[in-house]
C-alpha cells in the first residue's frame, strides 16, 4: 500500500510539474511572408525565447501565396498562427470579421502607447475604422515602394556623356517620374561592358497584387485619390481623374519602352533578379529588400544607391509594411500578447532596425543618427512621410483583384484606353461597395 501511495504521489507530482511547465512555456507560431525581414525576426525572437521561456515557431509563406494562404487560414478559423504579421490592407477584414484581437485594453495595461510610433504607420497598420483609436495591430514593419539603381553606371563618364548628348541633361538620381522614365529609356537596349542592358524592372504581376502596387507608385505622385470625399465611396472624377489617366498612361509607356523583354508578370522576385543579374539600370521594390541588396557582393556596396519614388505633381509612395496582430482563434493569446509587449520595447525596436527590420518606433526613427545609419535610411524616412495605401476595406481582396485585372488588361495586354480601364474599375468597385451595403 505504501509503495502504491508513493507511486501515486510520484505520478501526481510529475503530472503537476508538466502542467506547470506547459502553463508557463508555450509554443507560439508567428506567421508572416517569406522574405529577408522574416529571417531577421527569427534571429531577434531568440531573445524573447530566452527571456520568456516560450518557444517561437515560424510559418513563412512566399509572397505570391501569402494573402491567399493566410486569409484562408483566418476565414476558416484556423489555429495555425498565434501571431500574424498581416498586410496593412487586411486590417479592415481582420477587425470586422473577428480574426484579430482588439488590443486597446492590452496596450493600456502594458503601457504601450501608439503615440510612440510613427503616425502614418499607426494609421495604416493598426486602426480600424481608419484613423479611429481602435487598434488591432502593433506597427511591426514600416515599408514603402522605393527605387534602387546602378550607381557605378550612373557615375561612369562615358555613360554620363552619352546621356548628356542624348537628353541635354545631367545623369543623376531622378527628381520626377518623367525624368525617371527618360533615364530608363536611355538605358533601354544600351550596351554596357559588352552586354545589352535595359531601363528598369517594374511590377507587372497579374495573380496577386503586383501590378497594382506598381501602378499606384505612378498614380500617387500624380495625385490619385480613391474617393472625392474620404469615406463617401464617391469615386467618379477621383479614380478616373485626368491626372489618374495620365499616370496610368505613363506607367504603360514605362512598361512598353523601358523594361526588359518578357517582364509581363514580374513582381518582387523578378525585380531583384533583374537587378542582381545586371540586366537593368534601375528597379522598383520594397524598402524591406534594401539591406539585402546593399549587402549583395556583386551589385551591392558602392555599386548601388537608393532613391524615394520620385514625385510628379506631388510626393507619393505606395505603402507596404505590416502590423503584428494576435489571432483571435489562438489558444495562446496571453503568450502572444507577451510577445507583442516585448516587441514594443524601444531597445528591441532599435535592435529590430539593426538586424534588418524596419522599425516604426519613434525612438528609432527620430534618433539623430538614424538617417545616416544605412544608405537607404534617410530615403525611408522621406518615403514614409508621403505614403498612401490601397483600400483597407473588409472587401479589400475583391477591390484589389478588380484593379489587378483592369490595369493588367490595359498596361500589359494593351486593351482599351487608360480612361476606359479606370471607368471599368469604378464600375467594379461600385458593384463591390453596393454588395457591401456601403453604396
Amino acid at each position, binding site marked *: 500500500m505504501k509503495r502504491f501511495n508513493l507511486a501515486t504521489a510520484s505520478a501526481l507530482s510529475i503530472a503537476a510539474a508538466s502542467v506547470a511547465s506547459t502553463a508557463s512555456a508555450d509554443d507560439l507560431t508567428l506567421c508572416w511572408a517569406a522574405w529577408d525581414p522574416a529571417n531577421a525576426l527569427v534571429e531577434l525572437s531568440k531573445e524573447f525565447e530566452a527571456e520568456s521561456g516560450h518557444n517561437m515557431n515560424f510559418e513563412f509563406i512566399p509572397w505570391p501565396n501569402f494573402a491567399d494562404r493566410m486569409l484562408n487560414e483566418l476565414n476558416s478559423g484556423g489555429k495555425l498562427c498565434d501571431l500574424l504579421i498581416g498586410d496593412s490592407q487586411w486590417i479592415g477584414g481582420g477587425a470586422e470579421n473577428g480574426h484579430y484581437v482588439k488590443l486597446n485594453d492590452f496596450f493600456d495595461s502594458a503601457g504601450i502607447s501608439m503615440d510612440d510610433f510613427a503616425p502614418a504607420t499607426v494609421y495604416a497598420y493598426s486602426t480600424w475604422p481608419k484613423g479611429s483609436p481602435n487598434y488591432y495591430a502593433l506597427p511591426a514593419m514600416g515599408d514603402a515602394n522605393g527605387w534602387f539603381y546602378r550607381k557605378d553606371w550612373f557615375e561612369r563618364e562615358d555613360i554620363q556623356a552619352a546621356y548628356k548628348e542624348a537628353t541635354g541633361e545631367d545623369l543623376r538620381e531622378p527628381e520626377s517620374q518623367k525624368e525617371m522614365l527618360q533615364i530608363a529609356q536611355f538605358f533601354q537596349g544600351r550596351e554596357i561592358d559588352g552586354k545589352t542592358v535595359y531601363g528598369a524592372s517594374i511590377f507587372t504581376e497579374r495573380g496577386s497584387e503586383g501590378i497594382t502596387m506598381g501602378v499606384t507608385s505612378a498614380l500617387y505622385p500624380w495625385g490619385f485619390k480613391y474617393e472625392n470625399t474620404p469615406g463617401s465611396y464617391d469615386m467618379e472624377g477621383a479614380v478616373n481623374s485626368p491626372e489618374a489617366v495620365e499616370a496610368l498612361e505613363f506607367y504603360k509607356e514605362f512598361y512598353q519602352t523601358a523594361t526588359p523583354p*518578357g517582364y509581363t*508578370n514580374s513582381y518582387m522576385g523578378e525585380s531583384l533578379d533583374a537587378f542582381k543579374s545586371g540586366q537593368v539600370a534601375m528597379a522598383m521594390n520594397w524598402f524591406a529588400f534594401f539591406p539585402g541588396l546593399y549587402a549583395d557582393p556583386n551589385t551591392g556596396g558602392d555599386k548601388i544607391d537608393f532613391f524615394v519614388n520620385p514625385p510628379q505633381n506631388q510626393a507619393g509612395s505606395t505603402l507596404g509594411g505590416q502590423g503584428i496582430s494576435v489571432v483571435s482563434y489562438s489558444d495562446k493569446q496571453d503568450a502572444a500578447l507577451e510577445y507583442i509587449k516585448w516587441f514594443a520595447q524601444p531597445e528591441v525596436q532599435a535592435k529590430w532596425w539593426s538586424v534588418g527590420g524596419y522599425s516604426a518606433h519613434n525612438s528609432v526613427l527620430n534618433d539623430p543618427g538614424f538617417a545616416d545609419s544605412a544608405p537607404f535610411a534617410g530615403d525611408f524616412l522621406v518615403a514614409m512621410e508621403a505614403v498612401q495605401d490601397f483600400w483597407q476595406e473588409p472587401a479589400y481582396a*475583391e477591390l484589389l483583384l478588380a484593379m489587378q485585372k483592369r490595369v493588367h488588361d490595359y498596361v500589359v495586354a*494593351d486593351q482599351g484606353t487608360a480612361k476606359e480601364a479606370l471607368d471599368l474599375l469604378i464600375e467594379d468597385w461600385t458593384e463591390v461597395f453596393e454588395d457591401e451595403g456601403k453604396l
Partner: protein
Amino acid sequence: MADTPIAHAAKATPPGMARKIRGLSDRAIAWIFVAPTIFLLLAINIFPLIWTIQLSFTNYKANRIGREIKNVGFRNYERILTDSDIWLNMQATAHFLFWTIFFQVLIGFTLAWLINKKFKGNDLWTTIIVLPMMLSPAVVGNFWKFLYQPQIGLFNYIITWFTGAEPSSFEMLGSVDLAPWSIVIVDTWMWTPFVMLICLAGLRSIPDYIYEAAEIDRASKLRQFFTITIPMVLPFLMLAVLFRGIENFKMFDLVVQLTGGGPGSTTELTSINLKREAFEKWRTGYASAYAIILFVTVFGLASIYVKALNKVKER
C-alpha cells in the same frame, strides 16, 4: 453443389449468419451492399451539389460569417450571363479546348499509327513519347516558362533559327496574340501521348485477318485506312476526345504556372476565373452560380457527346 468460389464462401459462412441472410430478400441484400456507396455518393456529390444550387441564389460570402445572408433570386445568374468579361473567359476556354483537342488527336493518332508499325526500338520510342504525361503539371508549367523566356529561352532560339527573327523580338507568354497559343503548345506537348496510347490500343485491337481479307479483295492501303482503320479506331478516338475535353475544361494548374491567366485576361480560363471568384474574392454565392452554369454546360455537352459515342460503338 459445384466446387466454385461462391460455394466455398457459402460453406465458410457461419450457420447463424447464414440463417439471418436467408431471412433477407435478394433485394434487401443488394441494398445492404449498395447502401454505403449510395451514402458516400450522396454525402460527397449530391449534397454539395444541392447546397451549391441553394447558395447560388444568395449573396453569401464564406469569409463573412456574421453577415446577413440574403436571397437574391436569379441576380447572380443574370450578372454572370450578362458579364462580357466572363464571355471572354468562355471564349478563351473554347479556344484552348478546340485547339488542344485538335492537335492532340491529329498528332496522337499519327504517332500511334507510326508506333503501331513493327520496327526496331518500338518499345523504347513508346516509352520516350509517353514521358511528358508522367510529369507534374506544375513542373511542366515552370520549365516551359523558362523555355518561353524571350532572352534565354530555347523555344525563342529555335523559332529564330527557322525564321531569322530576333529571339527577344517576340514574347510567347507576354503577347496577347501568342499567349493563347503558348498554352495550347504546352498542353499538346504534355497530353498528346495520352491520346496516342488510347489510339494505339484501338489500332492493336483490329484483328489482322480484316486487313488480310481486304488485301485479298485488292483494297488499296488508302482504302483500308479509311474503311477499316478509321472506323474501328473511331470509338477509341472519341473516348480520348471526351477525356481530354473534360480535363481541359477544368484546366487550371498548367495555365496558372505559365501565364497566371495573363497577359491581362487573355488566358484566364473559366476555371481560373471561378477560383478567383470563389477563393480569392470570396463571392461564394456568385461563384456557386458560376459553377452551376459551368456544370450544366459540361454535363449537357458531355451527354450529347456520350450519346454520339454510343451510336458509333453500336455501328
